[in-house]
Structures are given as structure tokens and as C-alpha cells.
């Protein structure tokens, strides 16, 4: 990658980290885990930026949150929140971005394959988040699933559809500008 492209990708990475942070404020609270647009932007970062820069965007976002900036869902922030009951969802973003980006890239960035990659990414987020929620709060599996997974399924399907479309649009704009 030439230096100009590296600079451009650095800027896009920061932009996506900021979008993920902004998405955390657009939240619909249901029980202890609110429905947020944050995970849509996380998976969009994977689709638009690819594995390397997508991971950089999520690590930047988590770093800012760990430092205490109010960027986690509902305006929380700090190391304590990163390792609190919803910390599994946040740390689950790391494998989710890596897998979504790699899968979407290898399948050739078509709307359907992008949506499939996002669905796999969402499953990874819940795969890390729900067990973490169960062990952090000591609640039984059925309650952890009822509070940490089931209320979000329909919302996630809408987010996958919207995210696939928005990621495609952003890629087209970026292609025009030569990123």
C-alpha cells in the first residue's frame, strides 16, 4: 500500500471508530443489554475496511472506551465496563470483525454474501457476549439467552439488511475517491 493510501485508510479507520462510538448512543434499552446500532457499524467496518483496518478500528474504539471515554452503549466507558456484564459483547467484536471481513473478502463482496458474513459476525458477538453475561451475573442459561440474545434477533436482521446496503454504498463512494 502506498503512503497516500495508508493515510487514507488511517483516516477511514478513525472515522469508523467514531461511527461505532456514535452508534452506541443510538440505543433502545431492553433489560441490562440495550439494542444499539454500534454492532451494525462494527460489522460495516469489517465489510468496508477489510480485516486489517477493520480490526484497527475496533481496537481503537475499545482503547478509547477503556481509557474512560463515554463511547460504550448508553454513554458508559472505562476498563470496568469492558470487563463488566456486557464486556463479552465488546470483546466479541474483535473475532467478529476478523471473521466477517475475511469471509466477505473471500466470498467476493456481493450483497447476499456480505449479509451472510455479517450474520456470522453477529453470531460470534453473541457467542462471546451471552456466556460472559451468564457468568458475570450468575443468571441461569435460559435467563441469559432471554435477556442477552432473544430480544435482539429481529433488530439484528434489520441491522444486517441496513448494514449490507450502507456498506455497499460507502464502498462505492470510497472506490470513486480511489481509497
Amino acid at each position, binding site marked *: 500500500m502506498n*503512503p*497516500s493510501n495508508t*493515510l*487514507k485508510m*488511517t*483516516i*477511514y*479507520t*478513525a*472515522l469508523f*471508530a*467514531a*461511527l461505532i*462510538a*456514535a452508534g452506541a*448512543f443510538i*440505543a*433502545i*434499552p*431492553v*433489560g*441490562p443489554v*440495550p439494542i444499539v446500532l454500534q454492532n451494525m457499524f462494527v460489522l460495516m467496518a469489517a465489510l468496508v475496511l477489510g480485516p486489517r483496518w477493520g480490526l*484497527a478500528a475496533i481496537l*481503537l474504539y475499545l*482503547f*478509547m472506551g*477503556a*481509557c*474512560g*471515554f*463515554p*463511547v460504550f452503549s*448508553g*454513554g*458508559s*466507558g*472505562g*476498563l*470496568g*465496563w469492558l470487563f*463488566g456484564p456486557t464486556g463479552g459483547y465488546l470483546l466479541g467484536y474483535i473475532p467478529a470483525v476478523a471473521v466477517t471481513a475475511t469471509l466477505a473478502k473471500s466470498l467476493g463482496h456481493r450483497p447476499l454474501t456480505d449479509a451472510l458474513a455479517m450474520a456470522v459476525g453477529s453470531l460470534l458477538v453473541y457467542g462471546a457476549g451471552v456466556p460472559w453475561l451468564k457468568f458475570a451475573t450468575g443468571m441461569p442459561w435460559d435467563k441469559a439467552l432471554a435477556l442477552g440474545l432473544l430480544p435482539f434477533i429481529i433488530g439484528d436482521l434489520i441491522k444486517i439488511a441496513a448494514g449490507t446496503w*450502507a456498506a455497499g*454504498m*460507502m464502498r462505492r*463512494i*470510497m472506490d470513486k*475517491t480511489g*481509497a
Partner: protein
Amino acid sequence: MDNGNAFAHHAGSSLLHELDVRCKLICISLMSLSLLKATIPALSGISLLLFMLMIHSGIHPWEVVKNLKYFLVLLVLIFISRTMTTGGEAMVTFMEITITKEGIFAGTMVVWRFFLVMISGILFTVTTRPSHVKVAVQWFLAPIPFIPEKRAGVMVSLFLRFLPLMVQKSRQVAMAQKSRCGHLEKNPVKRVKHLALPLLKNMVQSADGLALGMTCRGYTEDRTELALEPSGREIPVMIFSVFMSALILI
């Protein structure tokens, strides 16, 4: 606050403006950690301290409230959700929804903590130049191997620049939509689409403009860095922060 933006830096000469950014970063991290364990007296103390710092830094509390109106709505929703989902002694029961005493307490505590995290974040961004944050991040990351600390520093400073820009652009797009009677649109999906699409386009164009500007000015990662100058008040501030955090956490 110029442009009514609570997330942008504002020049000043208060204690927070002059404090070394590395010290501020450590203090904000310690505070966010302490907030998790903070009880009502500790939260009251932190609230009073942040309010005094806000006044001292020239930030008007009313301006902050105005800027955070959407965030405050979110906090109200979080409070309502907590009061209804936390089990305990029932206070009011209406259409199979029970509001409990424990729920009201849990909701108040969560909302109070979230609000204080937000205020501390605003105090940091308002009193700190993004270029100083960049240098501080580089300083913290330099000892860690395999991390390009200079690039990470640039990303952090850009992240802090993009947040207020996003708020500003979303307001512009919302006003443009309103001037075209977009607020009369009843379909929520269309309303979100008409707001999100131009906003995302705007943000990508801003990012491109920034990249072009930086390239034209011959930006490289190996340039002379800004020197951070401690004000001399860092040690007492750090001792106070560590002591207060230890008191709350233990």
C-alpha cells in the same frame, strides 16, 4: 461553547486546560473505574467535583444539558427499563408491569454513573487539544512492542476530531431535511434513511478532504512532535486521584 458543540475543544486557561494530558488520561481512567463501585456519597462527591471543574473550565452546565438532550432521553429510557426489569418490592403495578423499589434505586445508580462518565468525557475533550492527545497516546504506547504508536496516536486524535464533526454534520443534515419538510414524513424508515444516507456521504467526503489536505501538506509519520509541558500541578492532582479512587474501590 462555540457552535453549541459539547464535544469540541475550547481554548482556555483553567486548571484542566493547563494540566498535562497524560495526567488527565490517567485521572479519567481511574475515575471511570471508581464509578463502578461508587455508592451514593461517592457519586455525590464526584458530581460536585465535576460540576466545580465544569464551572472553572468555563463550560456552562445549561449548554451541556442542551447538547446532551438526546443522550438524556436515552438515560430516561434506561431508567424506565431498569425500574421495570429489576425484581424486588413492588411499588406500582399497571397492566402486568411492575415498578419496584429496587428497580428505581438500580435505575438511578446506573443513570447517575453513565451521566458522570459522559460529563468527565466532555470535560476532557473540551479542555484538551487533539494534537496533545495524539502525543500522549504515543507516549503511552511507545513501550508496547508491535504497535505503530505514531499511527495509533494519529487515529486517536482523528477520532476526537470526527466525533464533534459528526454531531455538527448531523445537525446540518437534519436542518436541511426540515427545510424541505422532511420532518413531516411519517414513515420512520424513510426518515432514518434520509438522515443517515447524506450523513454517511458527508462524513466520507470529509474524510477524503482531510486525507487530501494532509497529503498536500506533506504529512508523514516521522515528523517533529509537539512537546508536552507539565504545568507543575500534576503530582498533587495524581495523588488526589489515586487516593480518592483507592478510597472508593476499597
